[in-house]
């Protein structure tokens, strides 16, 4: 192979190892899952005296126990697979605590959720009875079956009303007590897997658990009962429970589960046993629809359809519900001049918000936010709800206005009304897509909800004639329904993207792409392709992103989808010019995007984005001054638009990167300050994005030797990360390490020492003894010890750190630094020749790490100074 570039093998070998935090955290997670909890339970759990083992369930063992304070028998579920520091445990505890709020005759009451001996436990109502599965095995008559199922369904409905989703409903999670009453158990516990090795071993004969060790939460229930969307890891909500309920009910009433494979639900198998009303089977069949949107709107609605007797009772309540909705309408409309024709002709708008953004949904969402994260959830909810209230009001106002313009005032054509309504339908779909996602929020994503709400498409556009005339043609009637369904899924996925649920979204995109392709509707194909391009870009698959976006450009051009064309060209420019580094091609694509935009009559947000992207392409091409000029223009445009606050913050952050690269510290500080201000305003003061900016600012302060401010900034960043990710998170320890360096620079050696020591211990506990980050901390501690008068202890630390670096990161600059500190330590001990040997090693390592121009590097200069001070200076 004569044309092989020299050194391919060498390059390959060099790329072999990485020692990032990511790897360390992966190790900690795997270790936790594999060895965290393989111990058997014995003895008491807090105030509960364990009496006997009742069985092993999916998530741990269940014991009969005695509550010694309240003198009652309880069922104690001890979860395995989690340890105290576990984020997953926190999630489960939150869920369980939310479930503990629920009191309903058809739900097993959770008395207490706690931690004892490092394990999460749930103390629950002790039910004398058996599981629904066992009960069904005794061959009860059909009417008794329906009655028990209805009970279980009411339990689910009650939970849904509180915003709880079960996620793993199945006959094994329903208990039937001695009176024949159904009680649902284990709400929300299947949120992510806590199924440990122990249970998977003990339940080796349980073939249903295809992946007992799933950690992601995307597939955590029992496949035979899980809804297709849950199996695919998309949105899991109350309607997924409805599907699982229907599978269980079908099994109970027809003698077998309806589908071989729930991801491919065709016609349900089997027929209802005699005595089961046909309407019941029909209702279940609807609840078994593969698309959530095709199922019943709620468990309540399903139960009503199953049981005709219930329908009568429900009718009366429906009136009450209607009144409630009306009163919301009255609130929204209380201040409008009341005209009789208006009221009768164009009042339907707010009703379309039912089931999307109405009082019951709002309550359910609030609960979902709270269960995602008690504190951050509440803050995120306040912001999100305010934004969506405004959005919903604006939508109702716009819809009503559109309607009145034609029907009441008569100053608008029917065609324009159609266009406006089509546009508004899209806005409503976006709102619905976002709210559909709320039940999937967790501690990581809940804080992104406010910015996702702010990112909804603008409603004002739907009154803009230029915007309206650029709308695409509607699909032909024969595929209209399917296109609408696909558009709703697209809206849901786009909301997931805004919420940062990239993995789930990326997993669902290929399916949607296929669906869009099979419909042969190019505007839809273009919209879906644009999402696909974005996801590829986010995932770093740049050539794939380019290919997808190039196709979007074709589809959008062909179908006159002009807005999308401008956006796709703009993103394609970024991918080609920035990510793939082809500056000229990128800039030329930007010009095309600008032309497409001009043709549309302009759009401030997109134009600001074009400037920002021009800046990024130039930044990538090393043209820092020009990049800065473009980004400054972009920042100015973003700053004029309140809605673009986050982009303004991002742009300021990028400007700060340039200033830092140019060593213009003061300017960097201004820019970071501006970014901080908007991130705080848009994300909240506790958001990790704020923490990241604070961390950068601290580093700038340190470079300016403004140590107090560096200290304060680090301390704030530390608080944020500790609150968001836990005190023991390696990132928090990493900040301690930085703080220690600040203290060292300030001459507070003892404070530095304490911080390094704490960081070393924390990292050791979270990442294991031998991790390279531990080596960093131990090296820093050794350095501090050597300069606080305990050179012997310092030398010991440094030798340990050096051994770790040599083994794991021989090319890192840290190794050179450690040798340099060792030299100083040895000199302090009077071991001059050993000291010189260490300094020699330091320079050769620094050269290896820094390359030919290493002599000019600050670390090398520092080390030369150190050597001169301790040796020649003597």
């Amino acid at each position: 192979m004569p044309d092989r570039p020299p050194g391919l093998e060498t390059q390959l070998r060099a790329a072999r190892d990485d020692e990032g935090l990511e790897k360390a955290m992966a190790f900690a997670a795997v270790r936790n899952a594999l060895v965290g909890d393989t111990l058997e339970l014995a003895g008491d759990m807090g105030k509960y005296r364990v009496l006997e083992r009742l069985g092993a369930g999916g998530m741990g063992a269940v014991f009969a126990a005695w509550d010694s304070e309240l003198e009652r028998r309880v069922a104690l579920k001890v979860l395995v697979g989690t340890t105290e520091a576990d984020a997953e445990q926190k999630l489960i505890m939150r869920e369980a605590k939310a479930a503990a709020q629920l009191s309903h005759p058809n739900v097993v009451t959770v008395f207490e959720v706690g931690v004892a001996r490092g394990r999460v436990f749930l103390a629950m109502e002790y039910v004398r009875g058996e599981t629904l599965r066992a009960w069904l095995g005794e061959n009860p008559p059909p009417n008794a079956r329906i009655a028990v199922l209805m009970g279980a369904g009411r339990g689910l409905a009650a939970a849904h009303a509180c915003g709880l989703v079960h996620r793993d409903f199945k006959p094994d999670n329903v208990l039937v007590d001695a009176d024949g009453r159904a009680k649902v158990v284990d709400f929300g516990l299947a949120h992510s897997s806590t199924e440990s090795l122990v249970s998977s071993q003990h339940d080796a004969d349980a073939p249903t658990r295809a992946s007992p060790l799933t950690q992601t939460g995307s597939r955590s229930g029992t496949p035979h009962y899980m809804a297709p969307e849950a199996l695919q890891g998309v949105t899991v909500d109350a309607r997924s429970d409805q599907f699982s309920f229907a599978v269980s009910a079908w099994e109970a009433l027809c003698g077998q589960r309806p589908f071989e494979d729930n991801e491919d639900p065709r016609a349900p198998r089997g027929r209802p046993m005699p005595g089961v009303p046909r309407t019941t089977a029909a209702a279940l069949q609807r609840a078994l629809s593969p698309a959530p949107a095709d199922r019943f709107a709620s468990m309540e609605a399903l139960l009503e359809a199953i049981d005709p007797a219930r329908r009568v009772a429900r009718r009366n309540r429906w009136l009450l519900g209607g009144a409630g909705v009306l009163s919301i309408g009255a609130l929204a409309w209380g201040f409008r001049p009341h005209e009789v024709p208006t009221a009768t002709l164009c009042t339907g708008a707010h009703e379309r918000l039912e089931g999307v953004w109405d009082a019951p949904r709002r309550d359910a969402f609030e609960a979902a936010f709270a269960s995602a994260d008690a504190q951050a959830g509440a803050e995120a909810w306040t912001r999100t709800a305010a934004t969506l209230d405004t959005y919903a009001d604006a939508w109702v106002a716009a819809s009503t206005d559109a309607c009145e313009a034609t029907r009441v005032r008569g100053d608008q054509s029917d065609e324009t009304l159609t266009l406006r309504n089509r546009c508004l339908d899209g806005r409503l779909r976006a709102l619905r897509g976002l709210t559909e996602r709320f039940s999937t929020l967790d501690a990581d994503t809940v804080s992104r909800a406010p910015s996702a709400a702010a990112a909804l498409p603008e409603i004002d556009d739907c009154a803009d004639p230029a915007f309206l005339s650029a709308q695409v043609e509607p699909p032909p009637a024969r595929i209209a329904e399917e296109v609408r369904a696909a558009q709703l899924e697209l809206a849901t996925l786009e909301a997931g993207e805004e919420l940062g649920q990239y993995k789930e979204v990326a997993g669902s995109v290929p399916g949607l792409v296929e669906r869009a392709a099979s419909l042969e509707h190019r505007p839809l194909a273009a919209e879906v392709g644009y999402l696909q391009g974005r996801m590829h870009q986010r995932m770093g698959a740049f050539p794939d992103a380019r290919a997808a976006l190039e196709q979007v450009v074709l589809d959008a051009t062909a179908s006159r989808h002009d807005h999308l064309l401008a956006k796709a060209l703009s993103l394609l420019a970024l991918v080609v010019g920035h990510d793939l580094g082809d500056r000229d091609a990128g800039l030329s694509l930007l010009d095309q995007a600008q032309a497409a935009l001009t043709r549309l009559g302009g759009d401030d947000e997109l134009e600001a984005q074009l400037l920002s992207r021009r800046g990024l392409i130039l930044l990538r091409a090393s043209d820092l001054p020009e990049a800065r000029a473009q980004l400054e223009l972009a920042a100015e445009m973003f700053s004029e638009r309140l809605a673009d606050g986050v982009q303004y913050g991002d742009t300021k952050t990028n400007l700060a990167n340039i200033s830092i690269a140019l060593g213009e510290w003061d300017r960097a500080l201004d820019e970071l300050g501006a970014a901080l201000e908007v991130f705080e305003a848009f994300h909240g003061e506790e958001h990790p994005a704020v923490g990241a900016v604070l961390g950068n600012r601290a580093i700038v302060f340190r470079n300016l030797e403004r140590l107090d401010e560096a200290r304060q900034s680090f301390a704030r960043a530390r608080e944020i990360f500790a609150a968001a990710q836990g005190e023991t998170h390696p990132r928090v320890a990493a900040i301690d390490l930085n703080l220690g360096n600040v203290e060292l620079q300030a001459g507070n050696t003892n404070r530095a020492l304490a911080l390094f020591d704490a960081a070393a211990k924390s990292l050791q506990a979270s990442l294991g003894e031998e991790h390279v980050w531990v080596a960093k901390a131990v090296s820093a501690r050794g350095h501090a010890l050597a300069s606080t008068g305990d050179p012997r202890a310092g030398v010991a630390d440094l030798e340990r750190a050096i051994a770790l670096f040599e083994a794991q990161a021989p090319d890192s600059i840290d190794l050179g630094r450690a040798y340099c500190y060792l030299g100083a330590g040895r000199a302090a001990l009077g071991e001059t020749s050993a000291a010189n040997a260490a300094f020699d090693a330091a320079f050769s390592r620094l050269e290896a790490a820094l390359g030919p121009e290493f002599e000019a590097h600050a670390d090398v200069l520092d080390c030369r100074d150190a050597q001169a001070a301790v040796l020649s200076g003597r």
Partner: protein
Amino acid sequence: MSSDDSALIEAWRAGDPQAADTLLRRYFDPLWRFFRNKVDDQAEELIQRTMTALLKTREQFRGESSFRTYLFRIARSELFRFYRERQRAAERFDFDAVSVADMGASPSSVVARREHERALLIALRRIPLDSQIVLEWHYWEDLRMSDIAEAMGVPLGTAKSRIRRAREQLEQALQETIESREQLDSTLQNLDGWAKELRNVVG
């Protein structure tokens, strides 16, 4: 080392958490190298699945290399199973690269790896999956040709020709990556020192 590994698996199966810990510490690095450049943060789950699959084995291993070969065989099949599960068999997702500031990323992700390594890792991801795997096993894990053949379940001659082909594919992919990379080098060098320090903070 061989009977040692088998004994550890046996002890783990019997419920000794220490044994699982030792095995994981011993083999985490190669498994991480194997998965990190093929999936995004699913790597940890796949490592977990691979380790768990070990529990099911009844094989006895002749020497460390035999065990490692077996481990990689499992890892590869778990990876393929994962792709199938996600219905992505036809479409490779390349998750690992650095994200972009434009997308609201924090500055820590602007520059994360040494550029030539990044280019190489990108190039590796661009070639067919099995080609990527044979190259990594050959150059990173020092697996013998016969072990690679065994782990992939193909004849020795096939494994040899796969490596040859994979190398050519990588060269081509690298060439394409480098062409787009050259203009970037200087920026990255400017930012690199800062980025390193930044990484200490924001991870």
